[in-house]
C-alpha cells in the first residue's frame, strides 16, 4: 500500500470579521471598505483580509507580524479554533471550514497539534501526564501513550522530569513539555503560536535549534507565528509578513531581506544581521568566462557569514561559487562578501532616506 503523502495547507481568500453581524459586511470589505471605516461605521473589527498562503508539506511556514496584525487569528483558522467569515482552509486537500463538530474533533485529534505562547499546560498533571494529554483525548491506552510520550520527552531533553509538575519547571522547560505534548500526537501539522515569545533570548535560540534539529527528522508542516524577524528568518523556509490583517509580503528569507516589498518591511529588515541570512549567490558575479580551476570553491546556499568563516584562511582573489552538483555558477571575492554585510545595510538606509 502506497503511503499517503500529506498535501500541505492551502489558505484561499480567507476573511475574518469580528462582530455580531460579521457576514453582513463581508461584501463591503471585499469591495475595499477599510479596517478603520468598518470599525467606525459598523463597530466591527476586521481581523483578516483576503489571505492566500500555500504551505507545502514538510516545510516551516513562518507568519510574522506585530501585535494586532492578525497572526494569532490566522493560525487559529488552520484548526478552526476561530471560524472564518469567508474563504477556504484546505488541509491535505480537505476544506476544514465545512466540517461538522465531530469531523472537526477528529481532524484536530489526528491532523494537527498546537504549541501555545503561554504553554497552556494542565497545572494539576505531571509532566508525563501533560505529554500524554493529546493521546488520551484520542482514546489511546495509557500504556501506548506513555511509551510515545517518554520517547518525545527524552527527545526534547526532559528525561528525568516526568514526575514534576509544570509549576516546578522554568519557562523554557515548560515549553519543552508543550512541544513534547504536541509531537506525541504525531500529527502532520504542527501549529506554533508565538511558542517562543515568552522565553528569554538565550533559551529562545536554544529552542529554535531544538525545533530545527527535530524538523530534519520529522518533516512536519510547521506553521510558526512570531513577532521577531530574526526568529522568522532563522526558522522559516517561507515567511509571510502580516500587517493589519493583510499579507504584505510572502517569500523566502532571501526575498524578504533583499527585496522588501515596502517601507514597512524595509524598516524591519534594516536591523537584521544580513551575513546570517543572505546567501553567497545573491552577492556573486555571474559567470562570464570559465573560472580558473585552482580557485577555492564554495557551495551556493551558504550564508555570507559562513562563507567568510570558511574563506578566512583562503588566498586572495576570486572564489568560485558552485551549485549543489558542483557546477560553477559564479565568482565572488572576499572583499565583496565583507562589503555585502555592511553596504547592503547602508543601501537599505539610503532607500529609506
Amino acid at each position, binding site marked *: 500500500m502506497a503511503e499517503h503523502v500529506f498535501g500541505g495547507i492551502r489558505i484561499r481568500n480567507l476573511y475574518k470579521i469580528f462582530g455580531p453581524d460579521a457576514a453582513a459586511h463581508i461584501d463591503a470589505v471585499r469591495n475595499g471598505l477599510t479596517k478603520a471605516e468598518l470599525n467606525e461605521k459598523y463597530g466591527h473589527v476586521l481581523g483578516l483580509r483576503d489571505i492566500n498562503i500555500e504551505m507545502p508539506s514538510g516545510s516551516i511556514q513562518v507568519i510574522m507580524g506585530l501585535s494586532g496584525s492578525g497572526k494569532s487569528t490566522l493560525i487559529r483558522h488552520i484548526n478552526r479554533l476561530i471560524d472564518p467569515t469567508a474563504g477556504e482552509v484546505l488541509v491535505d486537500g480537505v476544506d476544514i471550514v465545512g466540517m461538522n463538530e465531530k469531523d472537526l474533533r477528529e481532524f484536530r485529534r489526528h491532523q494537527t*497539534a498546537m504549541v501555545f505562547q503561554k504553554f*497552556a*499546560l494542565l497545572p494539576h498533571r505531571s509532566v508525563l501526564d501533560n505529554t500524554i494529554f493529546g493521546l488520551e*483525548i*484520542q482514546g489511546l491506552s495509557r500504556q501506548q501513550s506513555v511509551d510515545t510520550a517518554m520517547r518525545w520527552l527524552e527527545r526534547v531533553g526532559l528525561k528525568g522530569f516526568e514526575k514534576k*509538575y509544570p509549576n516546578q519547571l522554568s519557562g523554557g522547560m515548560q515549553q519543552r513539555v508543550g512541544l513534547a505534548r504536541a509531537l506525541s500526537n504525531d500529527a502532520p501539522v504542527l501549529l506554533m503560536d508565538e511558542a517562543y515569545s515568552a522565553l528569554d533570548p538565550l533559551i529562545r535560540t536554544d529552542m529554535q535549534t531544538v525545533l530545527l534539529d527535530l524538523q530534519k527528522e520529522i518533516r512536519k508542516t510547521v506553521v510558526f507565528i512570531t513577532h521577531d524577524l530574526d526568529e522568522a528568518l532563522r526558522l522559516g523556509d517561507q515567511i509571510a509578513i502580516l500587517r493589519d490583517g493583510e499579507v504584505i509580503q510572502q517569500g523566502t528569507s532571501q526575498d524578504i531581506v533583499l527585496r522588501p516589498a515596502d517601507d514597512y518591511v524595509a524598516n524591519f529588515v534594516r536591523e537584521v544581521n544580513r551575513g546570517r541570512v543572505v546567501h553567497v549567490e545573491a552577492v556573486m558575479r555571474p559567470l562570464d568566462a570559465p573560472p580558473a580551476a585552482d580557485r577555492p570553491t564554495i557551495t551556493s546556499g551558504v550564508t555570507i557569514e559562513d562563507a567568510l568563516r570558511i574563506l578566512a584562511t583562503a588566498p586572495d582573489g576570486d572564489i568560485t561559487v558552485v551549485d549543489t552538483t558542483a557546477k560553477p555558477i559564479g565568482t565572488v571575492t572576499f572583499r565583496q562578501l565583507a562589503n555585502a554585510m555592511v553596504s547592503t545595510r547602508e543601501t537599505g538606509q539610503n532607500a529609506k532616506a
Partner: protein
Amino acid sequence: MDWFFKFPHMDDAALRALKKTIDEGFRGFTRAYGDTIESLFTPLQHFLIYAERFTTKTPWPIITLIILAIAWAATRNLRIVAGCLVTLLLIGYFDMWDDTMRTISMIFVCTVLSIAIGLPIGILMSRNDKVQKIVNPILDVMQTMPSFVYLIPVVMLLGIGKVPGLIAVVIYAIPPMIRLTNLGIRLVDRDVLEAADAFGADSRQKLFKVQLPLALPTIMAGINQTIMMALAMVVIASMIGVQGLGQPVLKAIANQYFTLGIFNGLAIVGIAIIFDRVSQAYGHRLQKHREIVHG
C-alpha cells in the same frame, strides 16, 4: 390625605380570601399527593436511618478511629488529628456522644445529598448563561428566606421527622455548593481550555479532564461552606423532630438550662471545627501542585 399617611392596601376581605384560597389549595394538594410525595422520599429516609444506625450502634472506639483515619487521610497533619481526638473525647466524656453521632450522620447525609444535587446544577450553570440567570435568583431566595417559612410547607407535606428536617437543611446549605461549582468552572484558565479544544477534546473530556480537576479547590471550598451551613441549621431542624445536638439546645432554651445549652452548643462548635479544618486542609492539599513555583 389619608392615603398619604397610611399605605393604601388591598381590601381586607379580598386579602383574607386570597390567603385562604392559597392555603386551601395547598392543603388540598397535600391531602391528594402527600402520600405519594412521602413515598418518593422513602429511599432518603432509609439512607438517613442507615447512616444514623451506623454511627450510633458502632462502638465508640471504632467510630473515633474511623474519624481519625479520615482526618489523617485528608490532611496528613498530626496536629489536626490530635485536635479531632481531644474534641471527640471531651464530647464523649460530657455524655453527648449519642447526640453528636446523630448530628454527624445527619450532616453527612445532607452533605452527600447537597453534592449529588449541587454539583450537576453548578456544572449546568457554568455551561449556560441562561441557566445561570434563572438559578441565581432562586439561590438568593433560598439563602435569604427565613428557614421557618419553608419549614411550614415541608411539614405540611411530609409531617415531622428526619426527612423534612433533611430537606430544610439541604435547602439552606446547598447554595454555596452550586455557586462555587459554577464559579470554579468559570474561572478555569481560558488558555488551557483552548489547548484542550486544539487537541480535539469533546465537552465530556473537557469537563472531566480539565474543568472539574482545575475547579476542584473551589468546589472543595463550596463543600466546606455547605457543611458549615448544615451545622448551623441543626437547632432549627431539631424543631421538626430531627434528633441530635439541636434537641438539648432547644430544651435548654425552653427551660433556661444555661449549662445544658452551652455544653451542646460547644459540641456543635467542636464538630464544626473538625469538619472545617479537615475539609479545608484537604482542599489545600489538592492545590499542592500550584504552590511549588519554580525559583
